[in-house]
């Protein structure tokens, strides 16, 4: 597992910048903690975001360069690259409300 792209890939697949939502989830290693965070973020995305959203899950232990490039200081970190303004959240993302908030879907 290096990078998993979990959005449904359709024929009309466009570049990432065309997706309604572009999200990056940084986790550290394949642990139960990572699995739980990924499961929650995936479900919330599937239930609340339009189908053309894109969620990229990145394991910082596998891809330290990606983490360095995004200046990630801690995991789990969820970055909403798009829609702008970009926002990033860190902490207990197994809380679905926190994820919804991160996506800007709940105030």
């Amino acid at each position: 597992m290096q990078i998993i792209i979990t959005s449904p890939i359709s024929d009309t697949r466009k570049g990432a910048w065309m997706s309604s939502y572009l999200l990056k989830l940084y986790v550290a290693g394949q642990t139960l903690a990572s699995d739980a965070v990924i499961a929650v973020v995936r479900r919330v995305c599937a239930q609340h975001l339009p189908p053309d959203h894109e969620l990229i899950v990145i394991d910082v232990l596998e891809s330290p360069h990606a983490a360095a490039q995004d200046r990630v200081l801690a995991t789990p970190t969820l970055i909403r690259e798009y829609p702008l303004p970009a926002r990033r959240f860190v902490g207990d993302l197994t809380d679905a409300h926190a994820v919804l908030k991160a996506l800007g879907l709940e105030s």
Partner: protein
Amino acid sequence: MTVTDSLTRQAEWKVFLIPAPGSDYRQLEDLFAQTDYHLTVLSGGWRIIPDLEEGLILLDCRDQEWPNGVSLAYQRLLPLIALTTRQQAEHVMEAGAWDYLLVDELNKDVLLRSLRYVTFQRWILAQLNARTHDLHVSEARFHNLVARNGDGILVVDQQGIIQFANPAAEQLFQRSANDLIGTPFGFPVGVGETSEITILQSAGRTATVEMRVVETEWDNQPARLVTLRDMTERHAAQRALMEHERLRVALEKERELSDVKTMFMHTVSHEFRTPLAMIMTASELLLRYADRMTDEQRQLRLTTIQTQIKHLEAMMQEIAMVVRADQGRLEYHPERVDFRELVSGIVDELRSTIGAEHRITFHAQPGSYHTLSDRKLMRHIINNLVANAVKYSRPGSSIHISLKRRVGEYELSVRDEGIGIPPEDLGRLFQPFYRARNVGIVGGTGLGLKVVKDCVEAHGGRISVESALGVGTLVTVCIPVMLG
């Protein structure tokens, strides 16, 4: 404390005159004699200024060396009034005198005004000094607390950017505060809670820390104060075990949530397993040992099998009903009934069956209760509500059923003194297979209330639930009056 108060207290009424050589101060002394201020003429010139710790300084600036005196007093923030001429006055003020008196135009009013004015300024200065000092002390105290704290401390603004990092945080991140400040950390989620995060240190290593977040203010803006406690070594094993359990539960919950069908299969297979196992055991015993059993023993096994089959059948029926209701195919056969008789009949039956260990009371407001209702569905409603009340409350406690006439509808309520339902579960009670998290080992399919709701809705009615943990639950069903 008013200003006048402070003036009377602060002014020691002492004025020290530093004279210019060869000048005459008799007129000045006469004027002072008319005031409360006490004038002392000093010798030694401007050099004695550092020795003056109180009172006001009156410096005669006709002395050629006056700039030394003025600047010395200015540096030491000493209150100095210059005795000078009109031509010189401006220079004297620029050099740092607090006020001036013109040698040729002295009178009592001017003198008093100047003395009071300078005293007042000195009082303000003293206040300012005291407050600045307090501020420094509290800042130093705060700085000490934060700097020496073993926990990493970050202040993160609304955009998730680090605004402050203490030395322990520098250690944790293996980055200097200068590097950290201005860097995006991410907006920390979960105020008031602790969670575990992994820190990516600059050298490529990681550290596990416990993060605690509270709301705070930074530069007058709302911000978050993040405390990071290094957990890498401390209680590693025990903590890992607890964390593992927490996450396993979270993951399991998540899997259940994400797939209603899986949940259905899970619940159904689980609920069916117990009665099937009991049937299996009883029938196996009969098969192997029937010849060695007494009639009574055989009868006992057969009864077990019958009871369990009935239980399975009832469950199947519930499931079938929910499925039918979901497909909009629930059969509704209304007939004329006296609603009170209908309800009290069902309640009487329940008293001798599932409710035998509880005190079930039934109370109905007097009056007639004619309406159209489906007896079968109504039985489902009451059976399920009473069964719930029985299951989730102590034997011996009371269950109150009451019937009231409202405008255009009958209100049926079932109240128990049971364990109650957590507030966060109230909203999802009517979802099929959903069970509150405090049900413990009490069995159930999570279908009962769903069936009730379907049956109530078939009547065109509504249902509501109020509950308090440890106090009890009140379910209210309103059935519209229909006359056919």
